[in-house]
């Protein structure tokens, strides 16, 4: 039965010269009460049969609205007001509801960003898969039921027979995204649209999902439109890429050309704003950033929409450029590159060169003992954790059930020395945020020592810690949740000043608040406004100003940039680097973006399921990782370079992290580790120093090939 369907599909397929999808002049507008927002403005592109096209842009660029417009999935007040979307010879925009319904989920399928909310929580997986196959008349319910199991197996869902009988909440995010892919592929569509399919996932899971999409594209010949803000993700999957800005396509070309030699200043800025994991950190760690914010959708610039932020702008940019060919197969919406002016090339060290350079420089660097490198460790650490344990008890499920707990942090040892930046990395659920909150004594550890500036604060009362709060501060992850919505920005910064008696008079306080706002690059006048009036990046600046108010020497930054667009990320990183230089700050920097961590950290700590796996100086960790988990983690990070991505082989880590309620005995990584032997299950590996300052907790450190 399956075969006949396949044959039929193949027979029905149009000749390969016609593109799978042809979008012309698409315009989507939001008719809001405050005015009309043109989210997608005259977008045109084609996707060839079997091609994978990437759409890149920051939030508000219109890339997701474009994706939704292709299937007409937008709700009021959004309306598609112009354009054509030709799919298999028919204009989707001219279809009647019945025709549209027949296309959706059948020939054209979509995978969404958030797998946690994309599945219906009260319906079994089986029903959700089967109904898609049955409604389009391709399968009977019995066939569909069997096929659902097969599809889930194909997508790498473990125990698919059991999985179809489960409900979505019983799965992790990665597994749910596999189910979503199975859903998308269930009728073997000609086109799969994936809108940020891996943004909500951890990097090792992201690698698995991207592999899957690549295979679907290759093995089934399914055309793919992949939307992402991450150039690395695009580089791994897509042959061709379009870049969107302010609702327009600003550049188009083969992915490798576009990444290697951007022809639009915005693409140039995107590429240069992100550090690369395969690059040795340059001596000046500041990232290339562009000024300002994305354009206000209610008030788009008249000329080139990127001109107000563009470092290369010329007079002509006051008029609006068209998307024109700048080289064979390359289009750009930029007067500068259309005139043939090249954009400056950033010096990039290829990995081989970099390694050679690192080796030759290693000695001199160590000897030169620049302030960045913490060489001799004779001084006492500013922060020292010993054997820190934090478990969160779960509510009892019944009167006679034993009380269970989430093992968030288990026996963690960690030192942070004055003036250095320690990066703390790990996937979600590894305990990195909990560890930050234990250091800050938002949580009290169950056992262990937390020594800050020579004082053990693990058991101290909040009152006893209060004097230390002036030295120990925190910047939070969520730019929206971390600012009190009912206080003005000024009050928020002034409150700790007054509370700790740092400023005495009102005038003094106001002056200091203005200073602080200036320091973080905000206009002091914003002090009178409330936080909801600011963008994510500005809020993070406010959050930093608040932390700086008490003049701390140690700042814990819990994923301070993960909610921001890349260019804003670069701005915040540069700000933090400036502040470190200016005030001699020490950072404990938590992030899941490994490239950023490599870029700004002196030393890096890798956590897995509440345990430290490896600690090493940054370059050493990234170039010569010893722990198998670190190797997998690093290998999973996509690199924004299509050539590198195409040629490099990378390690594939299968499976998902086990439950932190009942963590594995012995080594916590053993359940996914190819090196695991009996000893790993019985003896928890101790942290052993393998090179100066390089410790790893593995019985077989450095043995993974």
């Amino acid at each position, binding site marked *: 039965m399956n075969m006949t369907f396949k044959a039929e599909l193949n027979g029905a397929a149009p000749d390969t010269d016609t593109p799978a999808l042809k979008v012309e002049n698409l315009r989507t507008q939001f008719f809001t009460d405050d005015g009309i927002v043109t989210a997608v403005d005259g977008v045109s592109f084609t996707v060839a049969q079997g091609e994978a096209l990437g759409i890149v842009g920051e939030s508000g660029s219109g890339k997701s609205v474009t994706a939704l417009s292709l*299937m007409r999935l937008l709700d009021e007040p959004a309306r598609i007001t112009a354009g054509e979307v030709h799919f298999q010879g028919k204009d989707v925009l001219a279809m009647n509801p019945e025709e549209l319904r027949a296309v959706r989920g059948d020939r054209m399928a*979509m995978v969404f960003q958030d797998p946690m909310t994309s599945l219906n*929580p*009260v319906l079994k997986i089986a029903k959700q898969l089967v*109904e898609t196959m049955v409604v389009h008349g391709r399968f009977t319910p019995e066939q569909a039921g069997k096929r659902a199991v097969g599809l889930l197996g194909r997508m790498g869902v473990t125990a698919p027979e059991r999985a179809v009988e489960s409900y979505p909440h019983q799965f992790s995010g990665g597994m749910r995204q596999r189910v979503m892919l199975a859903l998308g592929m269930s009728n073997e569509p000609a086109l799969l649209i994936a809108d940020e399919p891996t943004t909500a996932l951890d990097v090792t899971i992201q690698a698995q999902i991207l592999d899957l999409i690549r295979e679907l594209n290759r093995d089934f010949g399914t055309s793919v439109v992949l939307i992402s803000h991450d150039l690395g993700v695009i580089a791994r999957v897509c042959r061709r890429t379009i870049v969107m800005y302010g609702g327009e396509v600003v550049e188009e070309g083969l992915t490798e050309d576009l990444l290697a030699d951007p022809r639009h200043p915005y693409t140039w800025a995107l590429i240069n704003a992100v550090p690369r994991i395969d690059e040795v950190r340059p001596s000046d760690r500041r990232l290339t950033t562009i000024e300002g914010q994305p354009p206000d959708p209610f008030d788009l610039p008249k000329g080139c929409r990127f001109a107000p932020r563009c470092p290369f702008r010329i007079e002509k940019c006051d008029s609006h450029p068209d998307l024109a060919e700048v080289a064979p197969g390359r289009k750009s919406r930029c007067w500068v590159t259309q005139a043939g002016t090249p954009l400056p090339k950033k010096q990039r060290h290829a990995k081989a060169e970099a390694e050679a350079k690192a080796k030759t420089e290693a000695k001199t660097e160590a000897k030169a003992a620049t302030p960045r490198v913490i060489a001799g460790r004779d001084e006492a650490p500013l922060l020292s954790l010993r054997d820190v344990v934090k478990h969160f008890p779960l509510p009892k499920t019944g009167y006679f059930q034993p009380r269970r707990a989430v093992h968030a942090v288990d026996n963690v040892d960690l030192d942070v020395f004055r003036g250095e930046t320690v990066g703390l990395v790990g996937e979600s659920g590894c305990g990195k945020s909990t560890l930050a909150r234990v250091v800050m004594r938002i949580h009290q550890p169950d056992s262990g020592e937390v020594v800050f500036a020579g004082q053990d604060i693990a058991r101290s009362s909040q009152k006893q810690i209060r004097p230390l709060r002036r030295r120990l501060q925190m910047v939070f992850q969520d730019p929206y949740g971390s600012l009190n919505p009912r206080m003005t920005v000024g009050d928020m910064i002034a409150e700790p000043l007054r509370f700790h008696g740092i400023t005495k008079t009102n005038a003094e306080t106001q002056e200091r608040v203005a200073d602080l706002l200036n320091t973080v690059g905000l206009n002091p006048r914003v002090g009178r406004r409330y936080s909801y009036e600011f963008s994510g990046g500005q809020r993070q600046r406010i959050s930093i100003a608040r932390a700086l108010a008490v003049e701390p020497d140690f700042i814990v930054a819990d994923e301070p940039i993960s909610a921001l667009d890349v260019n804003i990320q670069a701005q915040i990183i540069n700000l933090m680097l400036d502040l470190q230089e200016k005030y001699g700050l020490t950072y404990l920097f938590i992030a899941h973006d490994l490239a950023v961590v490599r870029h700004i950290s002196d030393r890096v700590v890798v956590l897995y399921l509440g345990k430290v796996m490896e600690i090493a100086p940054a370059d050493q960790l990234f170039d010569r990782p010893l722990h198998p988990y670190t190797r997998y983690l690093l290998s999973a990070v996509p690199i924004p370079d299509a050539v590198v991505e195409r040629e490099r082989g990378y390690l594939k880590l299968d499976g998902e992290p086990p439950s932190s309620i009942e963590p594995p005995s012995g080594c916590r990584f053993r359940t996914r580790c190819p090196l695991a032997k009996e000893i790993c299950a019985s003896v928890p590996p101790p942290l052993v120093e393998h090179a100066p300052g390089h410790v790893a907790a593995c019985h077989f450190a450095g043995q993974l090939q």
Partner: protein
Amino acid sequence: MTRYIVSRLGITIVMAVLATLVIFLIANTVPGDPVLAQLGDVAASNKEFVAEWRAKFGLDLPLWHRYLIFLYGLIHGDLGISIASQRPVLDDIVQFAPATLELATIGFVLALLVGIPLGIVAAVWRDTWVDHIARVVSLIGVSSPTFWLAFIMLAVFYGGLEIAPGPGQLDPIALAPDRVTGLLLIDTVIAGDWGTFRDAAAHLVLPSIVLAAATLGLITRTTRASMLESIQQDYVRVARAKGLRKSTIILGHVFPNALIPVVTLGGLAYAQLLSGAVMTETIFSWPGLGLYTFRSAAALDFPAIMGITLVVALVYLLINLMIDISYAYLDPRVMR
């Protein structure tokens, strides 16, 4: 599953025992003097008589002892003697309960049958005339006092238009069937007395509509709100991207999710229905628990009021238990 149900059941039993304690404390420690209330002014002024009376009813014993006696009585079905009827309260309740059960069941079913579809329709066609009508109906339902609505209905359809029968369960001239279940509709069927059946049914129309009104408003509002909430979820967009029919999306995807908050209303609806029953039965002279409550309250018949409160609270606990259990079936996330 079993573990969940057993644990809910355990909690319910504990709460039931505590509820009896609350009733007992209200009856025995609230400032109003039960002696005065039960004996009347004249007898209460005679000190000797009062002391004797206290001893007779065990009121001179310590509080905890009296509570144990009270509990012992409860277990044996002793809710005390009603002052007004001079009969055991439990007998009174058993006599009056069926009329209320009949009325409340019909009113509740009516509210569900109208309220849920109305809520769905209002959410799906949001901001259209259907939605506006649903909003007016539900707002008037929740905002109008039941006793007044009952009066208006009676005044218009019985007093004014004369198309509805008057107060009571049956016409004064009709002959009540033999009491088997106490539910008139069923008893008349058993007796094969179709004339009386029609009469009983006709008498049910107005009061059940009145009783349904407030609950209807509550159900419509909640259904609409939770449908709207559910419609905005990502899985609805996914369902559209699958190419499902609109009816499948609404009834197969949105509604099962929207139903969960509606079920939570069960307890609230029961409370509404109860207070509604007191008012409705009073206006319609309906011989049920509501009218009994009204009369007991008016006569300050203390044992009767306490008895009713206790029975009502126990039924309320039972309903909440059933809601908790039905959650387990409606929402797979409850069973972790």
